[in-house]
C-alpha cells in the first residue's frame, strides 16, 4: 500500500467519524428524532410496565401478559419513528437546503453524509431496542425473547425493510415538509399494524390479519412476537421482510437524487396520484381534528392576526393571507379569510385559521396541519385558546 492511499484512508476514516459526530450533535440540538424515537417508547414502556393488571399472563394473548405482547410493538415504534420520520426528514432537508450540493463540491461524496445519517439513526435504534429490553426486563419483569437467534434475525430484517422504505421516502421527497407528509402517511397505518394503538389479536378478523402479514410492520411484529414466545419466526414473515428490504433498497438507490445533475422533472401524473393517495389520510385527519371558535361581532383579519401575534408563543410564525396546501405539503396564498400559524424551527407543525362570517357572529375554524395529531395538541390548541381569550 502506498503512503498516498494510507493517508487517503486515514482522511476518509476521520471525515466519516467527524460526520457521524456532527450529525449526532445536530440530532441532540434539534431532538425531534430523539424525543419521538426514544423518549416516547420509553414513556409508554414505563406506563404499561407500571400497571400490574397488564403484567399478568392472559390466555387470550397466548399465555403471556399484555405487557410482554406490547414489547415487540414498542421496538417497532422506535424503528418506525427513526426510519420513516427522523431519517427522511433530515436527508430531504439537507437536499432542500443545498447541504448535499455543497458536499458534492468537496472530495467527500454526499453519500458519506447519507451513511452518517444512517449510522446515527441505526445507533439510536439500537439504543432504543436496548432500552426497551433492558428497562423492561430489569424494572418491569419483561420476559426477554426466548429464541435469541430468531429475535436477532427478525430485528435485522425489520430494520432492513423499514430503513429501506425510509430511504425511499428520502429519495423522492424534495423538502422536509414533503418527507414528513409522506413519512406520516406511512407511519400511521404501519404503526396500526404493528399494534401501537391496540393489539391486533383482539380484532380476530382474518382480513385484517392477511393485510397485516403482507405489510412490513405486521410481518415484523409477527416475527418478533414469535421470538418472544420462544418460537423461530415463520418463513413467511421473514420472507416478507427480506422481500421489502430488497425492493425498497433497490428503489431508493434508483431514485435517490443528490441534487446535482438531476433532470428537474416536476411531479408528473403518476407521481401526483401517488402523492395524493399518500397524503389523503393526513388530510382526512386534519379535517376531523378541526375545531371552531365562535366570536361575537366581526373582527377584521388584521385584528385577528394582531391578537394571534400577541397571544401565541414567539416560536410560532403568524402568516396572514396564507393557507395550508393539501393539509400537509407547504402553503399557498389564499386571501384575507385565511391565517396560517407555523410552529417551531422547521415550521412543520402548523394550524390554519379560516374566518367564516355569518349573521350575528363570526366562526373561526382552526385546522391542524403538518402532523395533524401533534399539531392539534400543540399549535392548533395554542391558536384556539388565544382566539377564545382575546376575542370572545
Amino acid at each position, binding site marked *: 500500500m502506498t503512503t498516498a492511499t494510507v493517508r*487517503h484512508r486515514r482522511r476518509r476514516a476521520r471525515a466519516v467519524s*467527524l460526520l457521524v459526530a*456532527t450529525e449526532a*450533535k445536530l440530532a441532540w*440540538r434539534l431532538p425531534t428524532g430523539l424525543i419521538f424515537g426514544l423518549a416516547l417508547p420509553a414513556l409508554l414502556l414505563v406506563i404499561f410496565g407500571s400497571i400490574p393488571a397488564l403484567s399478568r399472563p392472559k390466555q387470550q394473548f397466548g399465555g403471556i401478559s399484555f405487557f410482554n405482547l406490547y414489547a415487540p410493538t414498542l421496538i417497532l415504534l422506535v424503528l418506525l419513528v427513526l426510519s420513516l420520520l427522523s431519517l427522511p426528514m433530515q436527508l430531504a432537508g439537507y437536499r432542500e*437546503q443545498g*447541504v448535499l450540493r455543497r458536499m458534492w*463540491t468537496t472530495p467527500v461524496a454526499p453519500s458519506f453524509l447519507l451513511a452518517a445519517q444512517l449510522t446515527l439513526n441505526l445507533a439510536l435504534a439500537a439504543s432504543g431496542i436496548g432500552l426497551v429490553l433492558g428497562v423492561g426486563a430489569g424494572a418491569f419483569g419483561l420476559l426477554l425473547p426466548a429464541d435469541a437467534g430468531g429475535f436477532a434475525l427478525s430485528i435485522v430484517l425489520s430494520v432492513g425493510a423499514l430503513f429501506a422504505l425510509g430511504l425511499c421516502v428520502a429519495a423522492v421527497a424534495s423538502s422536509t415538509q414533503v418527507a414528513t407528509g409522506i413519512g406520516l402517511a406511512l407511519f400511521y397505518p404501519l404503526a396500526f399494524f404493528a399494534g401501537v394503538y391496540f393489539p391486533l389479536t383482539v380484532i380476530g378478523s382474518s382480513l385484517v390479519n392477511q393485510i397485516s402479514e403482507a405489510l412490513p410492520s405486521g410481518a415484523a411484529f409477527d416475527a418478533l412476537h414469535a421470538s418472544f414466545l420462544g418460537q423461530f419466526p415463520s418463513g413467511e414473515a421473514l420472507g416478507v421482510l427480506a422481500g421489502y428490504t430488497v425492493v425498497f433498497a433497490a428503489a431508493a438507490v434508483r431514485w435517490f437524487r443528490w441534487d446535482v445533475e438531476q433532470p428537474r422533472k416536476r411531479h408528473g401524473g403518476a407521481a401526483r396520484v401517488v402523492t395524493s393517495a399518500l397524503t389523503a389520510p393526513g388530510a382526512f385527519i386534519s379535517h376531523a381534528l378541526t375545531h371552531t371558535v365562535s366570536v361575537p361581532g366581526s373582527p377584521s383579519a388584521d385584528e385577528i392576526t394582531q391578537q394571534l401575534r400577541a397571544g401565541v408563543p414567539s416560536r410560532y410564525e403568524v402568516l396572514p393571507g396564507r393557507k395550508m396546501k393539501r393539509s400537509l405539503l407547504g402553503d399557498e396564498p389564499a386571501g384575507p379569510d385565511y391565517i396560517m400559524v407555523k410552529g417551531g424551527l422547521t415550521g412543520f407543525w402548523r394550524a390554519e385559521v379560516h374566518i367564516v362570517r355569518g349573521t350575528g357572529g363570526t366562526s373561526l375554524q382552526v385546522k391542524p396541519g403538518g402532523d395533524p395529531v401533534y399539531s392539534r395538541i400543540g399549535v392548533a390548541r395554542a391558536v384556539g385558546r388565544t382566539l377564545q381569550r382575546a376575542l370572545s
Partner: protein
Amino acid sequence: MRHSATPGAGAPPVITVEHLRKAYGATVAVDDVSFSVGPGEIFGVLGRNGAGKTTTVECISGLRVPDAGEVRVLGLEPRHDREELHQRLGVQLQQGALPPKLRVGEAVQLYASFYDRPADAARLLERLGLEAKRGSYWRVLSGGQKQRLSIALALIGQPEVAVLDELTTGLDPEARRETWDLIEGVRDSGVTIVLVTHFMDEAERLCDQVALIDQGKLIALGKPTQLAAQAATAKRVRLRAPGQLGEQVLRALPEVSAVEHKGPDIVVAGSGNLVTVIVLALDRADLVAEDVRAETRNLEDAFLALTSRAEQSSAGAEAGGPAAEPAGP
C-alpha cells in the same frame, strides 16, 4: 497590482472550456461556449440573471454533465476525476446552506477533515473576520457572514482554483467592498479564481478577463477595458441644459448626432472633439457651457451595447439577414 495580475501569461491554462453545451429539456442553457483561464487570473463570468453563468460553472465544478463539448480543470475531467479535482478546486455555490444548528467552528473543522492538506482553520476564520462567530449557529449569521463562511469552506482545502458564484449578491455596499479586498488577497496568494457575477462594477474592479454570456451564448471575451473600448461606438458629453436656443445651436452642429434630456442636464452624443466643439459653439452664441463632463464608457455600457447588438443580429438572422458577427476579439 493590476500589471502583475497575469503572472502566468503564456503558461498553460488552468481551465479550458471548449464548445460547451447544456440543455434542460427544450431550453438551451449554454450553447457553444469556449474560453480558457490562465493561472493566477481572476476570470469573470458575466451575464444577466438566467444567462447561463451558473450552468457554465456547475459544469466546471462537476455538478453537471455537459451535453457536448469538453471541460478540463487542472488537466482533469470534472465528473470523471471528481475526487481528485475537488482536492484542488474550491467551490462556493449560489445555493448551498448548512444545517441550521451547525456552529461556524464545527463547520470549518468538519470540512477541513475532507481535505488532504487543509488550511489552518483559525487563521482562515480570522482572515474572513469570523473568529468572533466561531460559536454561532449557521442560522443566526447575517447574510454577509454566511457568504464569508461559504468562502471559508471553499478555501479550507487550500485550493489552486476557486469558483465563486454570485458571492456579493445581497450584501450591503461596505460588505461588498470588503469581500472584493478579500478576493484580491486570495488571488495574490496564487489562487486562480472564477467569479460569477451580474455586477459590472464588480467585474471591472476585480477581473483580469471577463466572458460575457447572454442567452447561453458567449458574446464577448477579453479584458474589461478592452470590452469597454470595443463598445465605445459614440462619444457622449453631459452638460447643464443651456436652454432652448442653446440646444438648437448644438443640434445644428455637424459633429452632433443626438441631444437627450436627463434631468437638469442634456447628454450630447456625437463624434470628433466633442467637448471643445460644444463649448466653442455655445460661446459663439453668447451662452455659457456649465458642468461639462465627458462620459467615459464603462463595462456596463459595453454590456448593454453588446447584448443589444447580439439581440439585433439574432433578430436579423431570423429575418434571413446576415449571420451574427463572431464573438470575442
